[in-house]
């Protein structure tokens, strides 16, 4: 499916979108590394859904708005995005920090959502289960720790990085720090209100995730009513990349089951 690239001003923030396919809307919220390119899993999902991929305010080609202070700001922003495009029955899919934003959105207002799919989201704290310090990782360590199958990491590391891409990497890292440095990758208030999520929820985790430990999956499943927690074998932090076919199949199946 062809996709289009465009920008929209929403909440005063010039925001970059990629959008392709048709059907029920599927809004994908990216993680700390942004969403610069239309990836194979997006292409595959666009065969069934209207796939909408924004770059969060403060990431990639989107502006850094004055109002952006914390993860809750992004949650309200995406409620504005849903209103802006007049979306309903949205399948909200969030990767990592994008999954955290999705949960924050859903506790505030999930009336526009058909399903909620969370890939390895941070957002809560399990005492004693300390997340690794992603901010002390070198660029190479970061790439390596994202994947279980190191051939993916080798592929990424072999790509040359030009100045514009380097600037995006630094910008994404800055906004990630802004949102997640302190408290580190969680919102102390989120856990208290996860019971408000009435949307059918699927939680996905790579069993070898080195960024956010898979142990967070069952805990979240216990906090979000009716949530299902599943894992991918031999998979790191990005199942949609490392296990793209299986990921697309599982996500599509869940959306269809929910719709029935």
């Amino acid at each position, binding site marked *: 499916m062809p996709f289009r690239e465009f920008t929209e001003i929403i909440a005063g923030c010039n925001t970059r979108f990629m959008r392709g396919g048709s059907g029920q809307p599927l809004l994908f919220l990216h993680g700390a590394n942004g969403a610069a390119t239309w990836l194979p899993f997006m292409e595959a999902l666009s065969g069934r859904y209207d796939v909408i991929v924004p770059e969060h305010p403060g990431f990639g080609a989107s502006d850094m708005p004055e109002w952006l202070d914390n993860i809750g700001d992004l949650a309200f922003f995406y409620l504005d995005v849903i209103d802006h495009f007049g979306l309903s029955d949205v399948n909200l899919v969030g990767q990592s920090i994008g999954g955290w934003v999705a949960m924050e959105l859903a506790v505030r207002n999930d009336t526009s959502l058909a399903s909620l799919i969370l890939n390895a989201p941070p957002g809560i704290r399990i005492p004693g289960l300390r997340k690794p310090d992603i901010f*002390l990782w070198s660029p190479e360590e970061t790439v390596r720790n994202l994947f279980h199958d190191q051939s993916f990491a080798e592929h990424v590391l072999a790509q040359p990085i030009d100045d514009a891409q380097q600037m995006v990497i630094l910008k994404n890292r*800055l906004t990630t720090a802004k949102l997640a440095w302190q408290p580190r990758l969680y919102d102390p208030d989120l856990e208290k209100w996860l019971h408000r999520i009435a949307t059918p929820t699927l939680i996905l985790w790579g069993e070898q995730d080195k960024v956010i430990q898979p142990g967070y999956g069952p805990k979240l499943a216990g906090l979000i009513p009716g949530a299902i927690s599943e894992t991918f074998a031999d998979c790191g932090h990005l199942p949609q990349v490392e296990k793209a076919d299986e990921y697309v199949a599982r996500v599509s199946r869940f959306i269809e089951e929910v719709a029935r």
Partner: protein
Amino acid sequence: MKFYFMHLMPYADLDLDYDKDYNSAWITLPNSYYDPKKGHVLYNRYLDELEYADQLGFDGVCVNEHHQNAYGLMPIPAVTAGALSRRTKNVKIAVLGRALPLLNNPLVVAEEFTMLDNITGGRLIAGFVRGIGAEYHAWGVNPAESHGRFHEAHDLITRAWTETGPFHFEGKYYDFEYVNTWPRPYQQPRPPIWIPSQGSSETIEWAAEPSRKYTYLQTFTPVAMLAKYMQMYKDVAEGYGYEASEDQLGWSVPVYVAETDEIARREAKPHIENFLNKFLRMPKEMLLPPGYLSLKSMMGVMKAKSSIGSQQTIDSVMEKGMFICGSPATVREKLEQYQTEIGFGHLLTLLQFGTLPAELTRKNMEIYAKEVIPYLREGAGAKIAAGA
């Protein structure tokens, strides 16, 4: 020109082989490497050295602030300055710290500085910094808020010193119903403010602004960079419509002076190299967390062939003028040349560095105080000393 003795108070007894197991002397190096019995001896030795600077006729002593490291044992510089405030009689005491963004309540700085200023009868110089990047790992403060918190804390503290309290302070990061600092500063309207920096055009623009005219202090940089930033300050001041005085420009540099060039180099070599390669050692991610520098500055760092983490030698830092080392004549000549060319009014010398032991530190201090300072006071620097 005014002469200051600066001390970093390193944990000089550090097991220097630590780097076989750890990649930094900061943050992640276990504090089991610290022996309190040795630390007790070092603290008292270093305080003695700072007090000795008063007796040797330095114009000031400088203490600073860093957290969770072997590089400098002065996490709370008010303790160091407090100890010095009664044992020294003449020197200015410059606290270079405090790292304002690290604080949940910056009024603590307003208070500790005014206490020091009152106790010493106005010998305090107030330093305001953001801290180095590692501090944000050590204290968990969000580096993306570093600039915002610094400016707001600065406004709060200077208003607490200069406005009649109580007043209400309304900020983004800090909001206080009652700002009413007791004691008030001894120096009126406030103590001199110094802004140490490793070089930043944003900092210079801010410090040189006519309502501030703060002393900009360039720390541990090649002399070419020193010249560039000092000129930048002068140009910015000119843009604001005034001429920057030498009192607004300072330089902080390690110095080692001995009987001859050869002796100086031989005696200083292992200790300055330990300072560079062991005590300053940290990965780039620790030194420069996201937000600590502007994106533009970070791009510059990423593109520059960085010396962070690479081994440095006494020769490489001497060549760049980051370390002044030699006989009294050599050191005088270099400092006089730099002062004449660049025109700074405050010279902060680090006469103990890394593992430099007590006896060599004393010898360095004595030769510097007797054979370098008087010459520069009478010579090139005399016009500034008279004017300041």
